[in-house]
């Protein structure tokens, strides 16, 4: 009778405990849910004082409640900046109605040429939800330094033109302005950004 009970109740119970322990262990070693790099707690909150492409002063406070994707670039950039902005535009399309909760910041590191007017034409050609930001060289340097985004204005050519090297990182901030995720413009697919933003938005709602 005792042996029979052991078989009927105790063994399955023990099995269930072992199984749940194994599952818990598996969960604690589960791969992180993010497809981008999780930088929560490792980068400062969104903060800047710049001029938007509408010519008005803008700060991070104006974006509270919005999820933000930020990228540094410049408008005399015909290839890689457009490619990145097209990818971010695709993310907005993939997000559907959630896109209303997201803004894209395109921070110019070439303020000598990037007036609000030029920036406005440039960013709106990609997506109406992109905000172009420019400012004095000092104001821009403060933001770039805050996010450890190096940039370099290259030597002028004989015809006066010049190129600018700029950070290749896409930064993602949550609706409270906390830095959460990073991706590299060259190898992050729009689908990966969409996946992570949906996860971030889902966690908050």
């Amino acid at each position, binding site marked *: 009778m005792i042996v029979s009970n052991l078989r009927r109740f105790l063994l399955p119970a023990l099995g269930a405990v072992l199984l749940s322990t194994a599952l818990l262990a598996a969960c604690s070693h589960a791969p992180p849910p993010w497809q981008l790099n999780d930088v929560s707690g490792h980068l400062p909150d969104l903060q800047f004082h710049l001029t938007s492409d509408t010519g008005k002063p803008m700060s991070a406070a104006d974006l509270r409640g919005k999820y933000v994707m930020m990228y540094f670039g410049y408008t005399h950039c015909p290839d890689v900046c457009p490619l990145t*902005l097209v990818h971010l535009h695709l993310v907005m399309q993939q997000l559907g109605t959630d896109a209303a909760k997201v803004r894209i910041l395109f921070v110019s590191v070439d303020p000598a040429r990037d007036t609000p007017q030029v920036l406005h034409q440039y960013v709106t050609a990609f997506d109406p939800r992109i905000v172009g930001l420019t400012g004095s060289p000092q104001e821009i340097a403060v933001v770039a330094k805050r996010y450890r985004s190096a940039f370099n204005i290259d030597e002028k050519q004989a015809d006066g033109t010049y190129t600018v090297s700029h950070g290749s990182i896409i930064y993602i901030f949550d609706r409270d302005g906390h830095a959460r995720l990073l991706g590299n413009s060259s190898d992050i697919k729009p689908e990966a950004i969409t996946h992570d933003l949906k996860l971030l938005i889902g966690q908050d709602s």
Partner: protein
Amino acid sequence: MKQLTYSIAFAALCLLLAGAAFAATHGLPITIEHGWVRWLPANLPAAGYATIRNDSDQPVKLTGAESSDYGMAMLHRSMQKNGKDTMAMVGALSIPAHGEVKLAPGGYHLMLMDAKHPIRPGDTVHVSLHFEDGKTLQATWPVRPANASGE
């Protein structure tokens, strides 16, 4: 005698025509496909993309470009260097024998500057690609919107 002169002239003409045909089919065994330009506003520099195929047994070098629609056309390459997105001029680009090179977003591209007249998405622009030995290929490429996601 007159008959002979005609015969020689005819033979010469045949040779000339054969030569012309040879030049057309074998002189430049290169094709340019899927060309397009990403339009940008405010007369900003635009980028041109295409696939260049070389069907010969020898590598062929692209050495430069020009366009009747732009003041300047230059071969450029985007790359990442020390964590930065950067762009540099390229002197020449070798197309391997029986191979192809893609001018595509995020890599090699033609930088098209100083448009000579207003250019809009939906227009077509003319591009000449110069190869070594002074050979040139003409192409007509469509202009697509800034946010076109073509490759």
